[in-house]
């Protein structure tokens, strides 16, 4: 196996010291000269016609510089299906709809100005439940589609469907089958740094926007289209990404507030900043959507799955975001987690007057996995097979092509299952103590990026300077996950320089090559691939120049060396004839000859070579760029086939819990998480990803729920929306990384950003069932639900 110098090592993140010192600059900390503060007026109704907007009082308030509505600004359409507007003109479809906005000289005046805007509405009947929204005669959230054609129902016009094998034959072949219905709740990403941006125009009407995004280049495309809508066709947007303060999917779309800041900046000729308060973030930023899943699975007498049928109904809310494509990821586990010969998957999305939803870590996988892995346990019980054995029997295998056409290059699922069972002492300790239980659940996720857009690519520029430093320009976004630490390791490894000589530049569409976005666990996977490609190009050029320079420099070095060591006799070795490009090696910033005597003078410092190449007649500076598009396919989602990712990540999590039958409270005693990561790039940042995701999985399982009553968010704050704190996370977590060294992964690695939260909830639910015999089917698993189920059991 290849040995690495920096890959696999615990290198601390480069931005860590600044973050620890309070010197990292988030959007909240940025200022521009003459900057104004923007504030948005949101709707008072979940569904209503806008009759009249009176902004006169607001306009007269001292310190107000602009008040805008849809009636005095150009129409800007936004959203995945272009069904949303930056500002709403005739109708509001959710409480968070933006009806007006102001820019003022300070945030207090902006807040006061918003209160002075008077809006008259004509309330309309709303629809808040996807089942109701599907019924004939339900109020229409959108009367027309974006092209102006009349709509007759609330179905979102997106199809996700898969059928493989023969479902009916699979059902006939089943000795056991179990049906189940499972639901998941609205969940907020809860980035500790809230959303925000600063928009500013120059006098050529080009836009610069500093914004909290995970998709700077798709955002540039979106904003350029908005500039067109504003009559500025051909003008350009430069997107600069500040220190992010968490992403978790919340930055995968462009948002109305960004377009409003752009409109205000253009209107006032000043920089305009909009930052959400925490209340605004909870109420007005799109959460993870709620789902309802019906699942049936069956197996034969030996426990082999014979079929799986999954139907998902997803509450989309009032508008579409990229989150409307969750089923594209749900399809992966639905068709391909465990070997199932006959599979059926269908997802329907429905418009309602609830808050519209967007991406969150896992992107449909935790929702689907909740139903699938809970139902796997139920089927195991029905078939009389140990749930661990049942999973092992149906385990995916390396080299297989799944019913969806996913090409499984490597698969460490079996090792993950066995590790979790071993660590929990599954066979020995399970069911030995009252009210204590063990459960497990596995996952499969994209591990080699995920093609949901025409391009799934990413670019990099490596620019060498006179000092042997490498300046990196990469379009991926450091959200806190540790992308920059891993990029530095990858560049140091692939090029052959010391990590402290590698510098990552801010993500900026003006300087960095295109990248589709930091999502789908693809950051490190793509960043490392691009780094390897660009480093190879640089090495080629460096070694080309070394053919001439190395012998000359070696001769000079030798002379100096001899002066210091008069008795030194150099070995009989012809440097000039050995100095051929395929014989050079670059390591830790020094060029040397492979298979040559390791004499101290027989090496050339990289900076020295670079200066020699630069400072001469017709000199050159060395820069290389690379663009990598992985060998995956954009699936046909309506038919449900296509190898969406270059490789796939697997994992299993196990939980041991204790349930208090008096209070219904669940105490997690320990968790074990085993993940097939391909190859560990950096154990410290990797652990951070899994621990952190697992904590989000615990929140999803037990605590978190954004409560929506007739479209209004009822708990917009951390007091009433509980995310796990340090007390809730006091149980021990055992991590195990299975290295499958995937050929498609850079250095053998797979993406790991999302997997850590995917199976957590069903692992806990399965442990609760094991402990007290109750099966909870709707998240989160609250003490009330457990008590109610226990009562029913009696």
């Amino acid at each position, binding site marked *: 196996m290849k040995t690495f110098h920096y890959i696999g090592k615990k290198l601390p993140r480069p931005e860590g010291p600044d973050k620890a010192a309070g010197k990292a600059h988030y959007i909240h900390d940025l200022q521009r000269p003459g900057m104004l503060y923007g504030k948005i007026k949101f709707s008072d109704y979940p569904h209503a016609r806008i009759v009249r907007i009176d902004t006169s009082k607001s306009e007269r308030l001292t310190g107000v510089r602009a008040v805008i509505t849809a009636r005095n600004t150009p129409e800007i359409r936004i959203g995945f299906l272009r069904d949303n507007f930056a500002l709403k003109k005739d109708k509001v479809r959710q409480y968070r709809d933006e009806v007006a906005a102001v820019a003022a000289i300070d945030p207090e005046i902006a807040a006061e100005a918003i209160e002075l805007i008077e809006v008259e509405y004509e309330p309309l009947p709303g629809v808040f439940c996807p089942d109701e929204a599907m019924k004939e005669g339900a109020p229409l959230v959108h009367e027309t589609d974006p092209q102006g054609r009349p709509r007759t129902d609330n179905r979102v016009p997106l199809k996700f469907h898969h059928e493989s094998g023969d479902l009916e034959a699979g059902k006939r072949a089943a000795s056991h089958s179990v049906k189940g219905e499972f639901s998941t709740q609205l969940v907020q990403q809860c980035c500790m740094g809230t959303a925000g941006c600063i928009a500013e125009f120059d006098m050529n009407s080009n836009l610069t926007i500093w914004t909290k995004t995970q998709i700077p280049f798709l955002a540039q495309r979106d904003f350029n289209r908005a500039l067109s809508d504003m009559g500025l066709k051909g003008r350009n947007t430069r997107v600069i990404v500040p220190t992010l303060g*968490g992403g978790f999917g919340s930055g995968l779309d462009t948002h109305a507030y960004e377009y409003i800041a752009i409109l205000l900046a253009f209107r006032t000729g000043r920089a305009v900043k909009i930052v959400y308060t925490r209340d605004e973030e909870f109420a007005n930023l799109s959460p993870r959507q709620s789902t309802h899943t019906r699942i049936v699975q069956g197996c034969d007498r030996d426990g082999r799955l014979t079929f799986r049928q999954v139907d998902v109904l997803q509450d989309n809310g009032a508008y579409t975001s990229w989150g409307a494509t969750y089923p594209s990821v749900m399809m992966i586990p639905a068709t391909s987690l465990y070997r199932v010969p006959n599979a059926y998957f269908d997802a329907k999305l429905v418009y309602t007057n609830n808050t519209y939803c967007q991406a969150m870590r896992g992107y449909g996988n935790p929702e689907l996995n909740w139903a699938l892995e809970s139902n796997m346990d139920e089927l195991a019980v029905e078939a009389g097979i140990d749930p661990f054995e049942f999973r092992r029997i149906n385990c995916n295998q390396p080299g297989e092509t799944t019913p969806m056409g996913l090409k499984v290059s490597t698969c460490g699922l079996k090792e993950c299952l066995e590790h979790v069972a071993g660590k929990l002492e599954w066979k020995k300790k399970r069911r030995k103590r009252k009210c204590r239980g063990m459960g497990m659940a596995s996952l499969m996720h994209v591990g080699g990026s995920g093609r949901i857009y025409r391009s799934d690519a990413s670019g990099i520029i490596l620019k060498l300077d006179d000092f042997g430093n490498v300046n990196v320009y990469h379009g991926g976004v450091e959200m806190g996950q540790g992308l920059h630490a891993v990029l530095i390791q990858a560049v140091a490894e692939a090029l052959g320089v010391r990590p402290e000589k590698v510098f990552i530049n801010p993500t900026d569409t003006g300087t960095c090559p295109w990248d589709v976005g930091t999502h789908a666990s693809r950051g490190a996977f793509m960043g490392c691939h691009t780094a390897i490609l660009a480093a190879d190009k640089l090495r080629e050029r460096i070694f080309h120049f070394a053919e001439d320079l190395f012998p000359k420099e070696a001769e000079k070095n030798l002379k100096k060396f001899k002066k210091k060591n008069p008795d030194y006799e150099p070995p009989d070795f012809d440097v000039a004839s050995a100095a051929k490009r395929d014989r050079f090696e670059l390591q830790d910033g020094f060029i040397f000859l492979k298979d040559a005597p390791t004499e101290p003078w027989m090496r050339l410092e990289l900076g020295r070579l670079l200066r020699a190449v630069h400072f001469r007649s017709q000199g050159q500076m060395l820069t290389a760029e690379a663009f990598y598009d992985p060998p995956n396919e954009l699936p046909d989602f309506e038919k449900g086939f296509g190898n969406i990712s270059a490789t796939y990540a697997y994992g299993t999590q196990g939980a041991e819990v204790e349930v208090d039958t008096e209070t219904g409270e669940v105490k997690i005693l320990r968790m074990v998480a085993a993940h097939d990561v391909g190859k560990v790039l950096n154990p410290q940042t990797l652990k951070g990803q899994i621990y952190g995701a697992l904590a989000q999985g615990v929140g999803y399982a037990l605590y978190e729920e954004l409560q929506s009553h007739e479209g209004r968010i009822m708990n917009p704050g951390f007091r009433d929306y509980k995310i796990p704190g*340090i007390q809730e996370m006091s149980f021990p977590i055992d991590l195990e990384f299975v290295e499958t060294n995937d050929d498609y992964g850079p250095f053998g690695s797979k993406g790991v950003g999302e997997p850590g939260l995917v199976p957590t909830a069903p692992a806990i639910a399965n442990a609760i069932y094991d402990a007290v015999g109750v099966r909870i089917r709707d998240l989160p698993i609250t003490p009330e639900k457990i008590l109610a189920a226990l009562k029913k059991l009696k």
Partner: protein
Amino acid sequence: MKTDVSFTLNGLNVTVTVEGYSRLIDVLRGSLGHTGTKEGCGKGECGACTVIVDGRAVNACLYPALEVEGKSVTTIEGLRGPGNELSSIQQAFVDHGAIQCGFCTPGMIMSTKALLDSNPDPTEEEIRSALLGNLCRCTGYVQIMEAVKQAIMQLKSK
């Protein structure tokens, strides 16, 4: 009503003019330019704005600016040593990967400092209780606990 308030900020005397309704966080992040203190919720629910006032960790988003008259305030900017080096708590956070997005980090570090200043050898339970009000969405707190324990060891060996 505007009022002048004088207090010690990271060891230096400062005087600022504040409104009656100004919060300590507004003064720190605003006219004093100490943006290391983060506002995560504005309601004392997340701990990102934790600073130390007269030895006690407080939420700067709830603390009236007028109340700091004559008091001593320490913010994350006050922990850095003179030679551009981090304090041992900060360094432990860096070394143990206790930092991800970093937005909760200054508050988390200030709560840790307030704890260790008053109780240099806390139990695991005391650490958790001191950091109860500091929310983190990225780390799952595991590496934060490791960092705090490392900082305790280092401070003890000094």
